[in-house]
C-alpha cells in the first residue's frame, strides 16, 4: 500500500466511526467503563479487557475492537484518579503518578493534576498510535523474510526478555514462569503428529488449554485474592470541582512529553513488559535529567507528565509487536491477542498481507479512543472520583462472577472453569513467591509458535542446528538471547561489580 492508500484507509475508518452512532456509543461507553475500571483500586486494564472480551464476543470484529481498545486506553488513564485523589494507584501503571499527583492534590490543585494527566495521556496515546502506523508495516515486512528458525528464536526471546524485566526478585524466577507457561502451552495433542502430551487421561485436555480462560485465571483470580485477603481500604478523596486542561503547561513541557512518549513506545514494544514499567522508567529518566530533581515528589508537573505520557504511549508500543509478529507487548495486549484470535484474526506478519488495512483500523480506533478518553476525562472526572468511595469488598465478588461466566461463555465448557481456578491460585502463589505472571502468559501464548517452528525449522534443515548461526537474523537473535542470559547471571553481575570497584580504585 502506498501512502495515499494508507491515508485513505485510515480516514475512511475514522469516518466510519464518527458517522456511526452505535459505534460512538460503544466507544464512549467502553472508554468510560475503562476509566472506572482503572480508577477503582484492584481492577486493572488487563481485567477490563478480559471481561469485555466475553461481552463483545458476539459483536463484529470492528465494534468489538472499538470496545476493547476503548477500555484499554480508558483503564490505563483512569489509574491516575486513585493516585491523585487518594494516593492509592488504581492500576500499577499509575503508581509513579501518585508520587507527584497526590502532593499536588493536597495543595488544592487536584483539578490541575487531573488536567495534566488527561492531556498527557491523550498526547501519549496519539504518539503511540503514530508509531503503530509507521512501524507495524515495516516490522511486518521484515518479519515476512523470517523463517521458522527466526520465529522460534523470537518466541524464545520474548519469553526470556519478559522474564528478565518483569521479575520482582531473581531473574531465574521470571524465566521459570515463562517455562511454566510453555509447559501449559504444550498440553494437548501436538500439532504435527497429534500425540497427546500431558493430558493425564482427561479427554477435555486433548484440544489443549484454551488461552483466554488461562489469561482470565492468571490475572483475575490473584487480583481478587490479593485485594480481599490483604484488605484494600478506600480513603477519603480530595476535593475537585472541575478538571483544568492547562494547555500552557503542556506546551512548556513538550520536550518531556516527547521523551516520555518515546520511552513508553519503546518499552511497550518489548514483549510482555507493561505500562507500569514504562511509567517508572519515564519518571526516573525525567528526574535524573531534570535541572531540579529535588522538586520531584513534591507535586511537580514534570513527574506527572512523564509517567502519564509514557504509560499511555505504551499502548501503541505494545500494539506494534502484537500486530506485526503476533507477540503481545503488554499483559492487556496479551488479552487483546486472545480476543482477536476469538474473532478469527491471527496477528503476525501475514496479517499485513491478508488484511492490509487492519493496522489503520486499529490506529483510527486508538485515535478515537484517546479523543473519547480526553472528552470523558475532562467532563466526567468529578463524577468518576465519587466511585473511589466504593469499597472493593462490594465490587470484587462481582468481578469474580464475571471472570467465571466470561471463561465459561467463550467455549461453553465448564472444564475451562475447572482449569481456571487452579491456574488462578497457582498464579497468586507465584506472585507471593516473586514469580512474575506476564512471562507465564507470554509463554502460554507463544508456546505453540515456538514448538511448531522449532520442529519445522529442524525438518527443513534435516536436523541440523547450523542455520541458527548461518542465517543473519537468527544469529543476531541468538546473540541477543545469549547476552540477555549471560548479563542476567549472578556470576556476570559479581564480575561487573568487581570490575567497577577496581576502576573506581584506580
Amino acid at each position: 500500500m502506498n501512502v495515499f492508500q494508507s491515508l485513505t484507509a485510515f480516514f475512511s475508518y475514522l469516518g466510519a466511526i464518527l458517522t456511526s452512532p452505535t459505534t460512538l456509543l460503544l466507544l464512549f461507553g467502553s472508554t468510560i467503563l475503562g476509566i472506572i475500571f482503572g480508577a477503582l483500586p484492584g481492577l486493572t486494564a488487563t481485567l477490563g479487557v478480559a471481561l469485555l472480551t466475553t461481552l463483545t464476543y458476539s459483536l463484529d470484529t470492528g465494534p468489538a475492537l472499538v470496545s476493547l481498545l476503548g477500555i484499554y486506553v480508558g483503564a490505563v488513564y483512569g489509574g491516575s484518579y486513585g493516585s491523585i485523589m487518594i494516593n492509592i494507584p488504581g492500576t500499577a501503571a499509575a503508581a509513579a503518578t501518585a508520587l507527584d499527583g497526590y502532593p499536588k492534590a493536597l495543595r488544592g490543585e487536584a483539578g490541575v493534576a487531573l488536567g495534566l494527566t488527561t492531556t498527557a495521556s491523550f498526547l501519549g496515546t496519539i504518539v503511540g498510535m503514530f508509531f503503530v502506523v509507521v512501524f507495524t508495516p515495516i516490522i511486518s515486512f521484515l518479519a515476512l523474510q523470517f523463517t521458522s528458525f527466526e520465529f522460534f528464536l523470537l518466541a524464545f526471546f520474548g519469553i526470556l526478555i519478559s522474564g528478565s524485566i518483569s521479575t520482582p526478585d531473581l531473574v531465574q524466577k521470571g524465566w521459570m514462569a515463562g517455562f511454566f507457561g510453555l509447559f501449559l502451552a504444550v498440553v494437548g495433542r501436538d500439532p504435527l503428529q497429534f500425540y497427546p502430551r500431558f493430558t493425564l487421561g482427561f479427554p477435555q485436555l486433548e484440544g489443549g488449554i484454551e488461552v483466554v480462560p488461562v489469561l482470565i485465571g492468571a490475572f483475575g483470580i490473584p487480583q481478587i485474592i490479593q485485594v480481599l485477603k490483604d484488605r484494600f481500604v478506600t480513603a477519603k478523596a480530595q476535593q475537585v470541582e472541575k478538571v483544568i486542561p492547562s494547555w500552557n503547561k503542556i506546551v512548556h513541557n513538550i520536550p518531556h512529553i516527547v521523551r516520555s512518549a518515546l520511552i513508553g513506545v519503546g518499552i511497550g514494544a518489548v514483549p510482555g513488559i507493561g505500562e507500569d514499567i514504562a511509567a517508572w522508567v519515564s519518571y526516573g529518566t525525567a528526574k535524573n535529567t531534570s535541572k531540579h530533581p529535588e522538586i520531584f515528589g513534591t507535586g511537580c508537573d514534570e513527574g506527572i507528565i512523564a509517567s502519564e505520557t509514557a504509560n499511555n504511549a505504551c499502548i501503541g508500543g505494545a500494539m506494534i509487536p502484537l500486530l506485526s509478529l503476533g507477540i503481545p507487548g503488554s499483559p492487556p495486549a496479551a488479552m487483546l491477542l486472545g480476543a482477536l484470535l476469538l474473532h478469527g484474526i491471527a496477528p503476525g506478519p501475514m496479517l499485513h498481507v491478508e488484511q492490509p488495512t487492519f493496522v489503520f483500523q486499529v490506529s483510527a480506533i486508538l485515535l478515537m479512543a484517546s479523543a473519547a478518553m480526553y472528552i470523558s476525562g475532562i467532563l466526567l472526572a468529578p463524577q468518576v472520583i465519587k466511585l473511589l468511595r466504593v469499597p472493593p469488598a462490594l465490587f470484587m465478588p462481582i468481578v469474580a462472577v464475571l471472570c467465571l461466566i466470561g471463561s465459561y461463555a467463550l467455549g461453553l465448557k465448564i472444564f475451562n472453569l475447572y482449569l481456571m481456578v487452579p491456574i488462578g491460585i497457582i498464579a497468586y502463589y507465584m506472585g507471593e513467591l516473586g514469580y512474575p505472571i506476564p512471562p507465564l502468559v507470554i509463554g502460554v501464548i507463544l508456546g505453540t509458535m515456538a514448538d511448531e517452528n522449532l520442529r519445522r525449522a529442524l525438518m527443513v534443515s534435516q536436523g541440523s542446528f547450523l542455520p541458527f548461526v548461518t542465517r543473519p537474523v537468527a544469529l543476531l537473535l541468538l546473540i541477543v538471547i545469549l547476552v540477555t542470559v549471560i548479563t542476567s547471571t549472578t556470576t556476570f553481575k559479581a564480575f561487573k561489580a568487581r570490575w567497577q570497584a577496581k576502576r573506581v580504585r584506580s
Partner: protein
Amino acid sequence: MLDKSKLRGADFITSIGLMAFGIWMLFQTFKMPMKDTYGGVINVWYVSPALFPLFIGTGIILLAINILIHAIKTGGFQVFKESLQSRKGLHVTEKGYRFLAILVPLVSLVYMNLPRIDFFLSILLFLLFFITVFYFDDFPFLKKLLAFYSIEMGILVLLFLTGLDTALIKAFRYTIDIITLGLILALYIFIRLQIKEQEEWHRKLRHALTISVLTPLFLVPIFRFFLRVPLPKEGGIVDLMFILYYAIR
C-alpha cells in the same frame, strides 16, 4: 510478595518442588515417541512430539537448581528449618481465614454449584456470602459466617455425593433449587441474627443483598437472551425468566 528473608526459605522448598515437577515432565516426555513409529508415521528425532517438552523440562530443572543454589547460599535452608521448628500445630491466622473465605465459596461454586444448581441461585448464594463476609470487615463475624457457609456447602456435598439429588430431582424437578433457596434464606437469617442492633451493619446487609440479587438479575438476561449463551445449569429461576422473557416478547 513475601519479604526477602522468608522468600529465600520459600525458594528452598519451591525450587525442590519445581525440580520434582521438571523430573516428572521429563519422565512423561520419555514415554513419547522419539525415533520409532507412531500412527503409521516413521519418526525422526527432530519431529518428535517429545522435542519441545524435553527442552522445557530440562530448562525447568536447570532453573530450579539455580534457584535452589541461590536459596541455600543466602540462608534459605536455615530459614526453612527455623520455620519448621517454630511451627506449633495448626494455627490459622486472620489472613489465613480471609484466604479460606475466598477459596471455599470459589471452589464450591465452580466444582459443585455451577454445574448442578440453577445459575441464578448459585450466584445469589455465592455473592450473598462473599460480599457480606468481607464488606462487614469484622474478624469474629468472618469466622462464624465462614463456618456456617461451610456447613451449608457440606450439606450440598452430602446431597450430591450420596446421589440423593438424582432421586429428589426425579420426584420433583426443582427440589435442588428449593433446597438452595432454603440455604440462601438460612444464610440471610444467620447474618441478621449476628448483626442484631448495629445500624451500620443493617445498612451493609441491605447493600450486600441488593447487589447479590441484582447481579444475576442482569447477568442472566445478558448472557442467556442477548449473547445466547446456554448457562451451565438452568433451573427454576432461569426457567421462570424464560417464561417472562417470552411473555414480554
